[in-house]
């Protein structure tokens, strides 16, 4: 089983780019299966089904969607196996830019929107810096100079990644991505590890506290001045 984990900000074009890349795999008689993770709602699943790819939707609801994705990886791999798929593609919801849901042997793909400004690559965290591939979308909406600066900024954050300029509408660049998917290594679940730890998320808010004042909060807490503390028993 080969596993591709696709992260990226909402609206960056993850689904559009994947549709083109997976269609290419299908044309080459390579079977893939997609799990789309989202928070409350998504109809992206239908788009994958339309091109004839087995699709499963997972809604994280109250759980952090990236934690949800990681926690369910075993089930997803089993499900892909049942569908005789050689490639499992996990499309994450991509929200806080802090989680990097890539495991060591998966192909980590970060989809990033070029119109979000040249500082974006510096703002996003491990989901870009630990990716194998950075797919830059919407490059046709800005000038060549801006595109080149954007690419340079990505390489500053992650000098080892491969940058693919893709267009989710025309499909340009997506064959290149399909090629990388085919070349990716096999995953062996028993020893699979995350590339980067998920952020700390143990506080009263995590278990449903709604009051805002500081005195109501317990757990691992970080103040705006950077001071981190543990409050509680």
């Amino acid at each position, binding site marked *: 089983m080969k596993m591709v984990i696709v992260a990226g900000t909402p609206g960056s074009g993850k689904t559009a780019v994947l549709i083109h890349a997976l269609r290419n795999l299908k044309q080459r008689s390579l079977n893939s299966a997609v799990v789309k993770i989202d928070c409350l709602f998504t109809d992206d699943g239908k788009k994958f089904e339309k091109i004839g790819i087995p699709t499963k939707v997972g809604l994280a609801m109250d759980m952090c969607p990236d934690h949800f994705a990681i926690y369910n990886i075993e089930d997803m791999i089993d499900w892909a196996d049942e569908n005789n798929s050689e490639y499992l593609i996990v499309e994450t919801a991509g929200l806080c830019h802090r989680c990097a849901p890539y495991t060591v042997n998966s192909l980590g793909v970060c989809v990033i929107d070029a*119109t979000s400004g040249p500082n974006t690559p510096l703002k996003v965290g491990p989901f870009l810096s630990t990716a194998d591939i950075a797919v830059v979308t919407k490059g046709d909406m800005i000038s*060549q*100079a801006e595109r080149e600066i954007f*690419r*340079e900024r990505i390489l500053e954050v992650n000098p080892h990644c491969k940058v693919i300029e893709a267009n989710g509408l*025309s499909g340009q660049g997506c064959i290149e991505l399909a090629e990388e998917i085919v070349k990716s290594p096999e995953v062996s679940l028993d020893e699979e590890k995350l590339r980067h730890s998920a952020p700390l998320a143990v506080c009263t808010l995590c278990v449903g506290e709604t009051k805002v004042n500081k005195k109501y909060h317990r757990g691992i807490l970080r103040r705006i001045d950077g001071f981190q503390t543990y409050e509680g028993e």
Partner: protein
Amino acid sequence: MIIDTITIIGGYNKKGEKEPVEKIDINRGEIFGVVGATGSGKSSLIGDIEQLSQTDTFSKRKILVNGEEPSYEDRTNPRKKMVAQLSQNMNFLADMSVGDFLSLHAKCRGASDKCVNAVIKLANTLTGEPIRKDHELTILSGGQSRALMVADVAIISDSPIVLIDEIENAGIRKHDALKVLSGHGKVVMVVTHDPVLALMTDRRVVMKNGGMDKVVATSEAEKSLSKKLNKIDEFMLSLRDKVRHGEVIEDVEMGDIGL
């Protein structure tokens, strides 16, 4: 890298039919026009060439350089890039100063930092209000940013293939801009609606329904007409400058244009 020819191998138009023009070879030193109604696919053709497409876009066109497929590295690494494009999209999403933007771009292209002042100097010969190094990109006018991009393409992205998308919409001196961009021994492609520019080219491809419909060579008659149109254009420009500078225009004898 010296580029002798680029070859466009036709794909499909918007209706999914094969393009009438199957193949175009454009040679070094040639200025090639792209004409056609709005929405006919001019910008997509230019886009295909900028990406050196390998049947991976809507049109399924394939672009060869010196008769060969360019490598992925050649297609994407800005330091090796053989195409400089002046597009209609001058968004300057960047929240930075002119000087910072240019030195960042110079770094991407592996060009010297000294380019920055040269770019600003050249840009200021093309536009009315001067651009300063410490100006924020976002406050530049349409004409100023266009002029800046022309100068950027000419100096920083100095590449053997130059693509120009509708230079006339900008309020800059288009002939000077074209001269600056079409340096010696380059392959130049110009998308245009303007007969003055279209007739300055050696050949032009006519776009229709997203496909390359036919290639027209500029005739002798067109070339001599082009010279006349140029004079009219220069006349219009001189009038425009006078109006801009608050002068009152006296009645002009049309014979003075010297057609």
